[in-house]
């Protein structure tokens, strides 16, 4: 009898279960919170939580830790972890669980060395069940922002550890996020269910289905044919399709706040013609950005005139030059031929490159467009083998702090482009000062110097401030909102129509 009742209840729940279906180009991966590809960031955010959350306007909000204290010298952070928190399997989430995760993360310190915080962590320990202490070598103003990233500082249930070293694999993807990964079919879908122990407000649906649809046009057709309910994410929907669907009464289109800057980096190193500042200035001034904004980006993004959006911390004191008419810029003294490298499979980059080629032809500059495949493109960025190359900042919460930090690394295009600038040593000194302080005055002074020095060096041609697109079926979804990070889609806050 019991069997039949459970069978009846199961079939009842399957028939009446409410699903939210979205699409993504690849499977979400094994969902190891401390590793990178093939684990997808947006899914790591769904399943795992960090100590703190990066909220609107860069405000740090409580998540696992309900509060925190920072020592006067800015080197010690103490997080308070309230009692009673649980992971999705019902096991206890306390300071000892956090400590175990930090141990696992620091075992692979090299892998996470791109993060300023990883290099600063000197010690960490659980003081007791409710207090976790983090000690740094020196004060670091981006500590909380970097702790809030989708990876690696996310907390896995100790019961899901296979060994002390999570880089060798985990038993199961158990976190304290709103969702739990239940099923994966390679190349087809991933199914998430609700975490029964999730502390926040539970969504009004039972399952989240993520279908694997690699082709952007197929994703739009799937949305239009009600195969999926929502499309969201970076490069998930093209500009043209987003614009088209914005006029369709069956769908709602939304754009996130600014999530980074797309720009061209101009190589100022000595072995390139673009070492001449006058040439770099001519390139920047001759580029008719408004035409690109309208014709290629369909006025869906804001035009960028500086490296970081002025609303970002410390980015509001950049001295901008008066805009000149791109068509009346004086031609460069002599004929030069330059190479612009772009990713061949990126139609937006190709179109912008062609527009710039036309603009520069007016000022004696011949631009060779080099379509590169993705890995070669990054190889060129790293080796500095370019006159001009597409580049972008890392978005929230990396900008501007962590992105500036990366300029010190020779493995970045920015370093290669800047290395022969006359004031490179001063720029680096200021960046180091920024990375080693939490003092507001020192931060302000050095940010002002670095951002203005970069602006005046003409090595960046900012094009547009990026944002994330979302399109959803009005008949299915009542409410959707973006998170503050590019990979936080706030799917747990979605409300389906009753």
């Amino acid at each position, binding site marked *: 009898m019991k069997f039949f009742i459970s069978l009846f209840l199961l079939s009842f729940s399957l028939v009446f279960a409410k699903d939210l279906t979205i699409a993504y180009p690849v499977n979400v991966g094994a969902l190891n919170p401390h590793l*990178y*590809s093939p684990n997808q960031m947006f899914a790591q955010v769904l399943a795992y939580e960090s100590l703190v959350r990066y909220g609107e306007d860069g405000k740090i909000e409580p998540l696992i830790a309900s509060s925190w204290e920072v020592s006067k010298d800015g080197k010690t952070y103490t997080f308070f972890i309230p009692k009673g928190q649980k992971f999705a399997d019902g096991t206890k989430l306390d300071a000892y669980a956090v400590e175990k995760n930090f141990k696992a993360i620091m075992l692979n310190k090299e892998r996470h*060395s*791109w993060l300023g915080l990883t290099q600063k962590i000197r010690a960490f320990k659980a003081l007791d069940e409710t207090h976790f202490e983090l000690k740094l070598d020196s004060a670091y103003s981006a500590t909380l922002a970097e702790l809030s990233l989708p990876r690696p500082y996310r907390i896995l249930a100790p019961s899901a550890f296979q060994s002390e070293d999570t880089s060798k694999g985990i038993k199961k993807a158990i976190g304290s996020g709103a969702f739990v990964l239940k099923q994966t079919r390679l190349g087809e879908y991933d199914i998430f269910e609700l975490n029964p122990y999730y502390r926040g407000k539970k969504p009004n649906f039972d399952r989240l289905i993520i279908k694997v*649809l690699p082709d952007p046009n197929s994703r739009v057709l799937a949305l239009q*044919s009600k195969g999926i309910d929502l499309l969201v994410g970076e490069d998930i929907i093209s500009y043209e399709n987003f614009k088209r669907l914005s006029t369709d009464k069956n769908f709602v289109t939304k754009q996130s706040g600014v999530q980074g800057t797309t720009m061209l980096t101009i190589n100022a190193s000595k072995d390139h013609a673009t070492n001449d500042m006058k040439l770099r200035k001519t390139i920047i001034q001759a580029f008719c950005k408004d035409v690109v904004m309208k014709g290629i980006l369909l006025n869906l993004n804001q035009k960028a005139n500086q490296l970081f959006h002025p609303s970002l911390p410390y980015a509001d004191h950049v001295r901008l030059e008066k805009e000149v008419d791109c068509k009346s810029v004086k031609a460069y003294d002599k004929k030069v031929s330059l190479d612009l490298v772009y990713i061949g499979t990126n139609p937006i980059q190709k179109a912008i490159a062609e527009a710039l080629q036309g603009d520069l032809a007016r000022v004696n500059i011949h631009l060779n467009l080099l379509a590169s495949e993705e890995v070669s493109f*990054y190889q060129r960025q790293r080796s500095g083998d370019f006159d001009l190359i597409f580049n972008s900042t890392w978005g929230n919460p990396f900008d501007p702090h962590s992105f500036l930090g990366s300029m010190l690394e020779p493995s970045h295009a920015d370093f290669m482009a800047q290395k022969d600038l006359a004031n490179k040593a001063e720029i680096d000194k200021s960046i180091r000062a920024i990375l080693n302080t939490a003092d507001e005055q020192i931060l302000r002074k050095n940010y002002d110097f670095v951002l203005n020095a970069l602006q005046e060096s003409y090595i960046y041609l900012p094009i547009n401030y990026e944002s994330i697109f979302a399109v959803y079926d009005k008949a299915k979804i009542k409410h959707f909102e973006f998170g503050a990070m590019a990979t936080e889609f706030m799917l747990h806050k979605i409300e389906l129509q009753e």
Partner: protein
Amino acid sequence: MLKFILKRLLYVPLILLLVSFVVFALLRLSPVDPAFSYLVQSQIPPTDEALNTARIELGLNKPFLEQYFLWLKNALSLDFGISYVTKREVLGDLLYYLPTTLCLTLLSMLFLICVSIPLGIIAALKKNSLFDKCILLFSFAGVSIPSFWFGFLLILVFTLGFGVLSPFSELGFTRYILPVLTLSLMSLCINVRLMRASFLARLKAPFLLYARARALSEAKIARTHLLKNSLVPVSTSLGMHFGELLGGAVVVEILFALPGLGRYAVGAIYSHDYPVVQCFVLLVTLVFIVMNLFIDILYVYLNPKIAYED
């Protein structure tokens, strides 16, 4: 015949060995550093230290021939390594994706045989009629339409228009209908024309006159003489169509979101996932060899005059 088959089977390891060496060498000739590619895929900053570590980890610091023989040694025990991107075993993943591609290709092959042969015969029998002209037009249009465009058209008409055959629903037999139509269109159109031409050529053959002189029934003449003889050139082209279909499956799998081998391999090629590309080429080579052998055996059935002798 048995000797022939055994001989062909004996060639298989040699062909695979040769192919594996050529692919291994070609991949290493690429200007892209596989260690750099590995770091990009793993989202690890490509610093000099990281590159050196990756080279040692992947065995790329060893001389080329040593790398190849190490790979070969592992491959002989069916260990084709770990994918740079998915971090999963390559052979396991390829065998997971293979059935979808084989199913799609074989269904398309079946569809193309079942449709193109009767259409070709009818067009030949009704030469210069309206039906024949319509078939001619259809064939020209069919070979000219790019498959990705035709696929989108089918989704627009059937899925968005009539609300049926959605390629975005659960994976079942009906999900294969639109992909099979898309994939087989070009080969089908070519085959219709070929079948028509082959049938017309046999209509004037002297053996028909002798068959009729022997007072054989028209049905028997059509079945045992006309059809079988007309199918010989068509069966040659079927071998080539199989290759076309297997290659074309890539586009169709991406378009219709089918979890197939082609889609997986293209992703691996884009990301320079060498272990996957290497194993994929070998697997496809093996499928081709088996298919060609099957076609060769089919010749003998269709025309016993063809004998494979040493």
